[in-house]
Every structure is written in structure tokens, then in C-alpha cells.
């Protein structure tokens, strides 16, 4: 370590918040942003290519708007994608939007590894906040299962530190395995705690029609999985999924044209950290998550205790364990205890962690994951998910989307109220 961390809300979020407060004091204010529609493909081995998947997600999102919506209402679009496989590496967004009736508007691909569409959502939120747009589409897409095994293994490692970590044999299973073993060493956590997370997320995802892996897993089975990167087994790792997701945001002054039942996107926080683990002061916490959540909570005027449900970036079970600490649901070092005591189980614990099944069960189509999380929170807060997996009395939900092993992170707070 040689540069000190600055764990503070990011300047941009801070400035928005401060500026908004000042403007409101004078009777003006930045616009509030609502989610008026959201949709996604089923995650997994999708039969369509990029264009077909995006059209499916966009169609679902358009159809979910309660009234009067047409693509021509959209002012701008941001689409997150790693462009896995390199099939349409350049101008991805232009290609996709022309196949969903959105041609002619400003579009761009947003790339921040697995947090690509979390940042696309943030960009969309900022576009409305700044007054540049009234209706914006944020989405994400990834096609991962049409490559040879060797090409896929290459692409799975492109978002880590290439020069040092990759040449030390590390892709993400390896980096997260290093974090897990160190967490076990420093704190009261064990592999069984990770097993509890895996079992929970499979249980949550079992009822989710959009999930990639819809099967429950016993504790014993998850405990004895094939070792991928010691101490992480197959049951600690998310699948590689195809998928696309899209949400439609609208400024408060146009929301009522489209719905009487909006979900408010109350705040957006983001942070970043050193790309490689060896440059970080600690490998048992993710500072980018701490920065992003701290900024998002502050801007929304909430604390972690107010959150009813959280879509958490559990690319590996240890990532969820550490996130429960970094997001403030558990004290530092107590993520294992949190999992052991089932405090993230739907309608049972303090807060429902990953009601969709998370990346572990719902799946992880890299660029689509962030806005896919937003689709879940939107539906949960509107009470429109399958009955069996509805989080009761949910008022506030968050999404937590991480790039790589924690180099980037976006956290969003959604609420029934503004």
C-alpha cells in the first residue's frame, strides 16, 4: 500500500446532493427519477444472439410500463456490456438500440466489467438529474455461452489485472479464493458460512422463473462440491449466463404520463479501488462498495437498517459475505455470523439478501447483471414477483453491482416513496 484511501461519498454524488438541497431551499430542485418499467430475458443458455436477446429485454421493459409508452419517448440510452467474446466489441449500443425502435437517439456502451450496467444505470440517472433527458433507457447484455471453453476462459479473465495477477495464475475464482482464505484467517468465518449463502440463494432462485439455475441445494451437497479454487467449490461460484436486462427511467414531471405506480430511484453511489488485490490495504473488504453505499445511503437519507431487500453482487459466495459487511448489514468481520444466523433469508432475517437468487442462482451475464438487479428490485417493490418469493412489506431496496474483484462498484437505492 502506498496511497491512502479516501472512503467518502464520490464528489459527483456529493455535489448533486448539495446542489439539490440548495436549489430546494430556494424553491427549485433537481428532478427526482423514477423507474417506470423494467424487463429482462431469462438468464442461462439463451437461444438468441445479441440482437434477439436485447429486443426481448426491451420488449419486456416497454410492456411493463403501465400506459402510453412508445420507444419514441426515449431521449437517450446507456447499455452496459463487456462485449464478451468480442462479437460486437465496438458500437454495441448502436446496434442493439436500432433493433428495439430506439434508432436516432444518443446511445453508448458502458463498460466497467461486471458492473457495466450498474454504471449504465448511474449514467442514465445522471442524465435525468442534470436535466438533459426526461426518459432514459439503461440496460445491459452479455452473450457468454456461444464460445469455446478456451475462449471463454480467456474472456472471463479480461477484467482483472493482466500484467501481475493474471501472470500469477489468477482469474476471479482465484482472487476471490485468496480473499476467502484471508477472511477465514482474520475473522470468525468458515467455509460453512459460504455454504449457507449458496443454499440460501439457490432457495431464493428456485421460485424465480428468470433464474439460470432453478434448483435447491442441500447444505451437505454444497459443502462437498468440486473444488474450483481452494477453498471455493463449484457451489461458491456463479454460472456463466447469457442474458439482457433493461429499465426505463423517467423524470418526475413526466412520470404520471406513464404510470401511477412508479418506483423511485432515490440515489446513486459509486466508488472505485485498486484493480489488483496486492495494491489494496486489505483484501477482506471492498472499499469501492463502502464508498458507493455510503454515498448512496447519504444521498437517499437512509441507513443500512432501513433496507428491506438487497440485490447483492455474489459472483462468489465470499463476495456476498464481505458485501454484507461493506454494505453495513453486519459489523466488520461478522459476515460469517450473519450468514450462519440466516439473517439474509427472505421474510425471516433482518434484510432479504438476493431475493432473485443472486448471481449464484439467477445467473451472471456480466454486462446485464446490474440492470437485472434493478429489474428485480422494481418488481419486488411493486409487488409483482411470483407470490412465493415476494418480500413482505418492502419499502426500500438496493442494488449492489461490483466490477472485477472490487475495482468498481455502483450502489442504487430504490423506494416506494421519493
Amino acid at each position: 500500500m502506498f496511497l491512502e484511501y479516501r472512503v467518502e461519498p464520490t464528489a459527483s454524488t456529493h455535489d448533486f446532493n448539495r446542489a439539490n438541497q440548495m436549489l430546494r431551499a430556494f424553491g427549485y430542485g433537481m428532478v427526482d427519477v423514477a423507474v417506470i418499467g423494467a424487463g429482462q430475458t431469462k438468464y442461462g443458455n439463451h437461444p438468441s444472439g445479441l440482437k434477439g436477446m436485447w429486443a426481448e429485454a426491451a420488449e419486456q421493459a416497454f410492456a411493463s410500463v403501465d400506459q402510453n409508452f412508445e420507444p419514441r419517448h426515449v431521449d437517450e440510452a446507456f447499455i452496459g456490456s463487456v462485449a464478451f467474446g468480442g462479437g460486437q466489441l465496438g458500437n454495441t449500443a448502436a446496434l442493439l438500440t436500432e433493433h428495439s425502435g430506439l434508432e436516432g437517439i444518443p446511445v453508448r456502451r458502458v463498460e466497467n466489467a461486471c458492473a457495466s450496467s450498474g454504471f449504465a444505470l448511474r449514467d442514465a440517472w445522471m442524465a435525468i438529474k442534470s436535466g438533459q433527458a426526461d426518459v432514459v433507457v439503461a440496460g445491459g447484455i452479455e452473450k457468454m455461452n456461444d464460445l469455446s471453453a478456451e475462449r471463454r476462459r480467456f474472456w472471463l479473465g479480461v477484467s482483472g489485472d493482466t500484467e501481475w495477477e493474471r501472470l500469477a495464475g489468477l482469474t476471479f475464482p482465484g482472487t476471490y479464493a485468496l480473499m476467502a482464505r484471508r477472511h477465514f484467517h482474520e475473522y470468525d468465518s468458515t467455509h460453512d458460512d459460504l455454504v449457507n449463502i449458496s443454499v440460501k440463494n439457490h432457495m431464493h432462485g428456485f421460485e424465480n422463473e428468470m433464474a439460470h439455475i432453478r434448483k435447491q441445494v442441500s447444505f451437505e451437497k454444497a459443502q462437498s462440491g468440486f473444488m474450483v479454487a481452494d477453498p471455493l467449490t463449484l457451489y461458491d461460484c456463479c454460472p456463466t449466463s447469457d442474458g439482457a436486462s433493461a429499465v426505463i427511467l423517467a423524470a418526475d414531471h413526466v412520470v404520471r404520463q406513464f404510470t401511477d405506480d412508479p418506483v423511485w430511484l432515490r440515489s446513486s453511489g459509486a466508488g472505485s479501488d485498486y484493480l489488483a488485490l496486492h495494491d489494496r490495504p486489505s483484501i477482506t473488504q471492498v472499499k469501492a462498495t463502502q464508498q458507493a453505499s455510503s454515498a448512496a445511503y447519504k444521498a437517499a437519507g437512509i441507513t443500512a437498517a432501513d433496507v428491506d431487500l438487497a440485490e447483492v453482487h455474489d459472483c462468489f459466495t465470499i463476495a456476498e459475505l464481505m458485501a454484507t459487511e461493506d454494505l453495513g448489514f453486519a459489523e466488520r468481520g461478522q459476515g460469517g455470523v450473519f450468514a450462519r444466523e440466516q439473517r439474509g433469508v427472505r421474510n425471516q432475517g433482518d434484510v432479504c439478501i438476493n431475493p432473485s437468487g443472486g448471481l449464484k442462482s439467477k445467473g451472471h451475464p456480466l454486462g446485464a447483471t446490474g440492470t437485472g438487479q434493478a429489474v428485480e428490485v422494481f418488481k419486488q417493490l411493486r409487488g409483482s414477483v411470483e407470490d412465493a418469493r415476494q418480500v413482505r412489506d418492502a419499502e426500500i431496496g438496493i442494488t449492489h453491482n461490483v466490477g472485477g474483484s472490487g475495482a468498481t462498484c455502483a450502489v442504487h437505492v430504490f423506494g416506494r416513496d421519493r
Partner: protein
Amino acid sequence: MNEVIEWQGYLGMFDENALMMQSPYIHNDVLVFGADSDYTTMAIAGLHLLSSRGIMISEIRSLPLVNPSAVKSATGVTVLCGEEEEACDWNLLVGEEATLVFTNDLERDLGFHGPSELESLDSTFYSDMQAAWEKELSSTHVSQGAYVSEAAYMEGADARLGFMAQSHDHALVWPPRQMDGDGKRLQQANSPLLASAVVESWTKLSAAGAPSEFALRAPVLGGIQTVFVRFEQGPCGVFLVADDEQYEPSIGDQVTFVVRRIYAQEGLIRYGMKAIPASN
């Protein structure tokens, strides 16, 4: 009878100032290199051994079987492989088997007594590993591995092979960085980092989970091991464990580092430091 010195995974024997290095492995009665070694890595180990005995070399003449830039980055020694006529006191003699001799007197008859026992490599392991490297090095093999271009590799070579760190704010920075938090460029990496560290975490990737650049060799090795270490002087790093080491790391282990092959791409072998237990 000379002493046989176990050194960085090889065996060294002195005859006055001359040094013979050899591999500890034998296959069908022939000395052979281990899983990630070659003449270059053994030459680097030999130069380190000579240096540790106070024998400092600035230039050495050799057949073109060692990689001069890797040796230079790892040891500071210039290897003359061409037809140059410049005077050069030291010669590196490359044996037909996995042996090297460093000598500054080509006229003198040298005598080395090797160890009585060597480790015999399993035939299947040896042939599979040879085949994997041969394929990896062939011009027709297109690796899907991490693309560290030759330029990027060479830019970091002194830090990678010679543990050269930057001195900044009374601390060492390694691997090197470009700018600090005040927006100022850091100095060039010219402060040596001691090759002594403690394991803070480790993992073993299964062959199926190994990155694609290791895909040919990981199944032969039964997976690849990586350690996350903290150096005595502060910086942290991640390293593969040397492939020949029968070593399962533990948190708190003391380790040191040796130069080995990492992987090959576009016909160029990328060398780097790998970890071995400090007791070695």
C-alpha cells in the same frame, strides 16, 4: 570433493571460481529440466549463487541458449551471445544435458563431483510436460491467454525479474506505479526489494479453473498454486508457486523467490518470479 549446494531449485558445485549448475532431475539416465525451468532460469540462479559468494560478474559470453534480456533484468549481468569480439572474462558453457558451467579460465581443466542421487521424473509427467511446452512454444499455437505484449512485458521486466521497486515517501512501491495521489510521477524503479515475504493467503486452482494460458500444463501439474504475500519491506504481491515444489502453502509461511518460466505466447517465453519455501 566439492560441496553440492542446493540453490533455488538447482544444484551448484564450485571448483575454485568456476561454478557448475545442474538440474536435480533425471529421466532415462539423462539430466533434464523440471516443469518450469530451462537454461535461462538456471543461469540466473547460477549468477545469483556466484554473487552470494562475492564473485561479481558484469558480462558473460554464452551460446544463444539463454535469454539475455531476462538475465539482465534478473541479475544485471550482460550476456554476449553474438560474434562480438569484445574482451569478456567470464564464459557460460552450456551442457548437452541440463547443466551449465560458469568459468573465467577456459584453459583450466575443471572437475566437479555431482550428487550421488538425483530425483527421477515420472515418464508420463515428463513427456506430457515436454509436449505441453512444445505446443505452447510452437508458432502455430494461438494462445487465448492473457495478452501481455512484448513491450508491456519488457517495461515491467526489471520489477518482475529483479524485484526493482520505487522509493516513494520513505516506503517502497512494488509493482511500480506511474503517479501518486498528488499527481506527481514516481521515480524509476531502482531500489531492490528483498526477496523475503510471508504468505498472507493462498489458493490452488483446479486444472479446469486455471487461466487459459496455463491450460496445457495445469492438467499435468494437477492444478496451479498461487500465494498472496507481504514482503518484509511492506509491499504485497501474488506469485505462482514454482512448479516443481511439493509444497502446500500455509498462512504465515516464509517464502523466497526464484526465476522460472511463466508461460509462452507468440514464441516468447515470459519469465517471472515464483515462490518457494524459504527453507529452500
